[in-house]
């Protein structure tokens, strides 16, 4: 047996100015050719562990380092980072932050040039790695002209160009849409299975890791809690949930049965195989009566929008949003979702058609006045933060709109309480975790007491607990009578929150239906490369007419049918 590629021996690490250990007594080995997943909630130490593999921890950050980390025989404390960089390829969460060159081929050549690789070899490597990641033909393209998935594949290609022994990916798919994430996983699978590349991937993507990983390491508070195959780790649903992790929906579904199988299925095909034949005679759920509609709060009539370069963004949108609705807008990147909501705020103006807010054309509103009625939390909340304290950030809009000081104080205090931010009111927003920063922006928007709240990809980059916390807040606001519009790719999160789904594709509305119906419109979802939750696919297999949505519903149906000897649930 060959020596392990990665050996960590009682590795502990403490960041400078931190009182706690980010990693504590981690001992593990990774063999050549393995695909290893690192899972754990935010703050578990996954990123620190990734950075320890190429010496950035501790050589860049400083701090205190205990134990030993060997990668391809090199001690990561003793070897300089540039020597380790030739053996450990790193790909980070946000592809935008990794690309610096002005063309695809220059991006790949950059590291090789720094390693003084001969020109002819650089040319060969560029051609080879572009073929591996499926970007051949785009050599002269500017990286910023690529899609999110293509950018991340380019980052992988740049990492592969130095022919590393191990490829380390830290949440490399969390900011991508489903199609982009699928592209990246497809490339990783090919690299691992066909070329024997060792892959270490920190990720929250449970379904994908169950599919692709050979082994998983579960970290929590810097400690290695459990290691094993995806089958052993993901079938321990209670353990995962105790660490605020989401198991694959297949495993969750079967764990909810009164008598769960000894070994839970963790992959979709295993779950489908474990289901009984399609149940017949089931009745579709009673149609839930729609909320009695008042006059629309927002009407979109024949909306077309064309960007300055002539690219059509929206082509003939007709929609209405009613008071107290919770609507979900889904679709691939570039299908016009954000362009649509920007029209509601008059951040974009129609090329043709019109948008009415409270019966008035948005062209008659100022952006500032519209902002009092419609609150907008952009995809990256960090781009909306610019004050030095949480309190100042929340009070900013009120002060700009010349609210009386006592009202500014009372509204700010109320928003701090509602969002649970009182304890951090005097802290800098960027000192807070990402989930809390999103709450700061939501609070800053709520103080204006808007009737409509738009959340654009609020769960992107959040772990499961963080995503649920934001959505729970949206539900509270909805229950208070606010109209909520959420844009997201993470369909599995939305049952229990949204009531209506608008599916967009190529600048058009492809489907506008109640959530249950929309999630089972598999043809439309596949056309837009959206992945229905596993529970929906299990439900389709089990009893399509019933349109089951969640692991709980599927398990209930399954349990009932088993109890009645296969009769309808």
């Amino acid at each position, binding site marked *: 047996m060959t020596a392990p590629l990665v050996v960590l*021996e*009682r590795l*502990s690490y403490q960041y400078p100015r931190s009182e706690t*250990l980010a990693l504590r007594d981690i001992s593990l080995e990774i063999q050549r050719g393995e695909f290893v997943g690192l899972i754990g909630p935010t703050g578990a130490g996954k990123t620190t562990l990734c950075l320890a593999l190429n010496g950035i921890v*501790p050589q860049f950050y*400083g701090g205190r380092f*205990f134990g030993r980390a060997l990668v391809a025989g090199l001690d990561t404390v003793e070897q300089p*980072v540039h020597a380790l960089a030739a053996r450990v390829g790193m790909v980070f969460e946000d592809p935008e932050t990794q690309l610096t060159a002005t063309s695809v081929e220059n991006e790949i050549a950059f590291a090789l040039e720094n390693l003084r690789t001969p020109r002819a070899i650089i040319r060969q490597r560029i051609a080879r790695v572009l073929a591996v990641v499926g970007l051949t033909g785009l050599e002269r393209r500017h990286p910023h002209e690529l899609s999110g998935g293509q950018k991340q594949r380019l980052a992988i290609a740049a990492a592969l160009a130095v022919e590393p022994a191990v490829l380390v990916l830290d949440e490399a798919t969390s900011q991508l849409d489903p199609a982009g994430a699928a592209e990246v996983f497809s490339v990783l699978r090919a690299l691992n299975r066909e070329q024997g590349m060792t892959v270490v991937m920190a990720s929250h993507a449970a379904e994908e890791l169950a599919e692709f990983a050979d082994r998983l390491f579960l970290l929590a508070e810097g*400690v290695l809690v459990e290691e094993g195959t995806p089958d052993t780790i993901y079938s321990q649903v209670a353990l995962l949930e105790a660490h605020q992790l989401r198991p694959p929906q297949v495993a969750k579904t079967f764990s909810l049965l009164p008598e769960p199988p000894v070994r839970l299925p963790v992959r979709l095909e295993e779950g489908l195989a474990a289901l009984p034949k399609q149940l017949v005679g089931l009745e579709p759920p009673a149609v839930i009566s729609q909320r009695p509609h008042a006059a629309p709060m927002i009407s979109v009539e024949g909306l077309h929008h064309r960007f300055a370069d002539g690219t059509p963004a929206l082509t003939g949108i007709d929609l209405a949003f009613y008071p107290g609705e919770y609507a979900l807008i889904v679709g691939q990147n570039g299908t016009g979702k954000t362009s649509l909501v920007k029209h509601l705020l008059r951040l974009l103006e129609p090329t043709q058609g019109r948008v009415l807010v409270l019966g008035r054309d948005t062209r008659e509103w100022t952006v500032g006045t519209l902002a009092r009625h419609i609150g907008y939390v952009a995809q990256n909340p960090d781009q909306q933060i610019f004050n030095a304290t949480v309190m100042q950030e929340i009070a900013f809009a009120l002060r700009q709109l010349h609210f009386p000081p006592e009202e500014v104080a009372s509204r700010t205090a109320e928003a701090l309480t509602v969002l649970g931010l009182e304890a951090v009111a005097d802290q*800098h927003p960027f000192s807070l975790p990402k989930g809390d920063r999103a709450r700061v922006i939501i609070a800053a928007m709520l103080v204006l007491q808007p009737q409509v709240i738009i959340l654009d990809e609020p769960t992107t980059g959040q772990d499961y607990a963080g995503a649920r916390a934001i959505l729970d807040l949206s539900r509270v606001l909805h229950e208070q009578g606010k109209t909520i519009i959420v844009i997201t790719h993470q369909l599995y999160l939305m049952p229990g929150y949204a009531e209506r789904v608008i599916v967009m594709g190529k600048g058009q509305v492809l489907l506008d239906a109640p959530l249950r119906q929309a999630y089972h419109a598999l043809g439309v979802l596949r056309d837009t490369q959206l992945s229905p939750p596993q529970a929906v696919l299990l439900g389709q297999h089990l009893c399509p007419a019933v349109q089951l949505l969640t692991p709980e519903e599927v398990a209930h149906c399954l349990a009932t049918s088993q109890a009645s000897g296969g009769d309808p649930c």
Partner: protein
Amino acid sequence: MNIQIPSGEERHVQRRGGATIDGAPVAYVAALTAVMIAFTIIPLPLSIVIGFGRSFPLSQGLYGLVGWLLGPLAGALANGIGVLIGIFVNPQNTTIPGASVAGAAMGALAAGVLGATGLRRRWTLPLALFFLLEYLLYGGRAIVQNGADVRAVLAGSFINWSALLLFILPTRALCARWLRHADLRYVTVALFLGTWISSGLAHLTSATWVYFIYNWPAENWWLMAPAAPVEHVARCVIGAIVGTGVIAGLRATGILKPLHAAY
């Protein structure tokens, strides 16, 4: 909180070269160089054409800040390269490129030494002597060779000699202490005062170079007397406003602090 003592042996951690320049990560130096390029291209609309340069680029208010963020040597490098590229793109913002680049570098060096700890505080004396020599050459040439009125020269070079005086006096230590103060109000005051010192010394370096080449008329010293301090206050306001926000953000995010940073 995990307070358990690690079982592994503690290793000696080195912040290795290659990724850093004088303890400042290369990425930080590159980022601040880019900031200086942008701010050198942008002229202040209220520019007063005095001293060196045909206009007043915003970067002149940030020479010191870069020194405090990166340390004296990496700061000088970032300022020098940033201003060099900036004036290449927008030559309107300089009279003599070398003078502008040297001034920017010396501004960061002075700021970095002002905020230095440990052995680097010993750099203060030679640097102060260097600036004193510059001032003697600058003022001496005006008075002795060109026959300018002593009072006019003193009034016209107020921002330079006052900066030098503040650099030599205990105000340097006070400024350094306040830059590290937890209360951002002290930081703001320190940034204002520190920018007065660092940009004043940067101006001295550039102005001496320019004066030896252009030798402006003796009457100009009186014209400079009221205008130069106004211009200099503008630099200090830029440094204080931008610097407070940047330092507050850097402290809050806990991002890696360069070895010789002074915040």
